């Protein structure tokens, strides 16, 4: 019984890994081999695809652009969401419950709905094709998510800790930075992860709100389709590279991920 379970699990994991393995496999072959013959492993192992991505200006720039707006979005979201979540978890004010729920409803609209207003607005105020444009647009979705996740973690911290700190003589900012933030560290990690991932995989807004200077990697990838056909090897290598940041972030929050999916509530 134990044995069959184990074998079943291994088979399942192998099955899940096939697309990823195949992507890596493709990225390590020249185009000629990819189109030519079927092979389970690279016959002529080459790192040429990766080398070209890192050396050709357009590719590297695309990665950098994506990372810049993703980090901007994450930093803005967390900075804004921390005080907001604290207010929702600690204070009663008129309409607090409605406001809190309204935040979540933002996530229920598909990003495409906001495409036109964002595009027109950003053109008018002159931030079109800047990193901040994409970062701000993504904030519309990542801030509510971060507020919900952080509120859940914060509500798990007893209010008496706040009061004890004030009685001990901590001012609010000092308490918040030195006592409270360490207590919800894992919550912040999870919120960072969700903001990061949303922004990293979001395509539509990112490509509509940029043209040349802030062009994200996903747009650059479409460039590999040229008159001479599709550059499969490059595309696969770029794909592998896009997996890495997400995998890294997941690794750091792996223990708290389940709570994050429950928006911080247990």
């Amino acid at each position, binding site marked *: 019984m134990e044995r069959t379970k184990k074998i079943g699990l291994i088979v399942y994991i192998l099955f899940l890994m096939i697309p990823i393995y195949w992507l890596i496999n493709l990225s390590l072959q020249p185009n000629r081999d990819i189109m030519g013959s079927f092979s389970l492993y690279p016959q002529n192992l080459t790192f040429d695809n990766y080398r070209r991505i890192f050396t050709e200006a357009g590719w590297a720039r695309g990665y950098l652009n994506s990372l810049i707006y993703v980090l901007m979005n994450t930093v803005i979201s967390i900075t804004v969401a921390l005080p907001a979540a604290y207010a929702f978890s600690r204070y009663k004010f008129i309409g607090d419950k409605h406001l809190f729920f309204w935040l979540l409803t933002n996530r229920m609209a598909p990003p495409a709905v906001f495409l036109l207003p964002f595009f027109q607005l950003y053109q008018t105020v002159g931030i079109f094709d800047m990193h901040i444009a994409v970062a701000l647009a993504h904030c519309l979705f990542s801030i509510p998510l971060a507020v919900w996740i952080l509120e859940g973690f914060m509500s798990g911290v*007893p209010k*008496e*800790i706040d*009061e*004890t*700190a*004030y*009685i*001990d*003589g*901590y*001012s609010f900012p000092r308490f918040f930075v030195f*006592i409270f933030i*360490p*207590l919800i560290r894992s919550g912040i990690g999870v919120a960072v992860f969700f903001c990061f991932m949303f922004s990293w995989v979001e395509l539509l807004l990112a490509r509509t709100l940029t043209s040349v200077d802030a062009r994200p990697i996903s747009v650059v990838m479409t460039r590999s389709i040229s008159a001479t056909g599709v550059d499969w090897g490059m595309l696969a290598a770029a794909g592998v590279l896009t997996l890495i940041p997400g995998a890294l972030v997941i690794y750091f929050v792996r223990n708290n991920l389940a709570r994050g999916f429950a928006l911080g509530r247990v």
Partner: protein
Amino acid sequence: MSLVLEGVSKLVEGEHHIYPTDLTLERGTMNVLLGPTLSGKTTLMRIMAGLDVPATGRVLWEGRDVTGMKVQDRKVAMVYQQFINYPSMTVYDNIASPLKLMGVSKSEIDKRVKDAAALMQLTPMLDRRPLELSGGQQQRCALARALVKNAGLVLLDEPLANLDYKLREELRAEIPRIFEESGAIFVYATTEPEEALLLGGNVGTMWEGRITQFGPTPKVYREPCDATTARVFSDPPMNFTRIEKTGDKISFGEGQSAPAQGALAGLADGVYTAGFRPDHLHLSAQGADGLHFQCHLNVTEITGSETFAHLSHGPDHWVGLLHGVQDLTLDAPIEVWLDVAHVYVFDEQGKLVAPAAFAMAA
């Protein structure tokens, strides 16, 4: 140094959590707030600490009005029922944190933290984090942090309620000792009359947002000013029954009567309420002029050294606290004796008109 509450009240959504209350706590006193849950003990303490602002009234500290003053600027310390420490700091840093904020020198901090830790028997745990400690140690850490400040007002909100029996007894014995060393005003909230008696000092009995009586603990216990206070300050609660005074006789019903002597002699004829504590009910005659009642035994609870007998007597529900393990027949008639010297008499408004002769003699 004294803390004075002047007409302090607290309203939450139009409901009185604290009715206008006057209270004066003198320097170097142990003050116990005794009352059931939701009687307003915590709310009153939060007002004393400055965590809540009263709806009306003033809080005076050493004669100065401190109503609405920020908590950070008050010299208070507070310990909660839950074990509240800063989980990300070591025990040492936990205890040192109020001193660091006060700008005390490093060597002085070290000395005071070590003293407090020694007093609380935490010396071997100073490098650990609070969550690695047992419940009792966590609470001792919270107490140490409250004491190290040398605050003039130390508020302890049911600090032992979440501890197991053994630890509670241990810490309860330590608290009066700590209090004596500090010279501060201690306010200690509890739901248990026994705890109030063990701690001594003053007691304020609370009931539904009011302090029904405040005074030296033994005096409040012996002479509760009304039936509510008597009920709060007795565990299990005091038993009550209707009595009638005619001439020089007090009739308890069932043909039981006692001569109206002492304080009772001066009462006007009429209907009163008699109250007596559960431990004054006996299974056998006590003295010559003991009253005896035919009751119905519903339930017994045996704690080991004592037996609680839940009795019905006409419309009244009584509890008898009997010594030792008693083998009684359940759901059967039972005869109990009561010495009239233990009976308190309250008027129809519940005000005490005659304290028990026994309590006054003691």
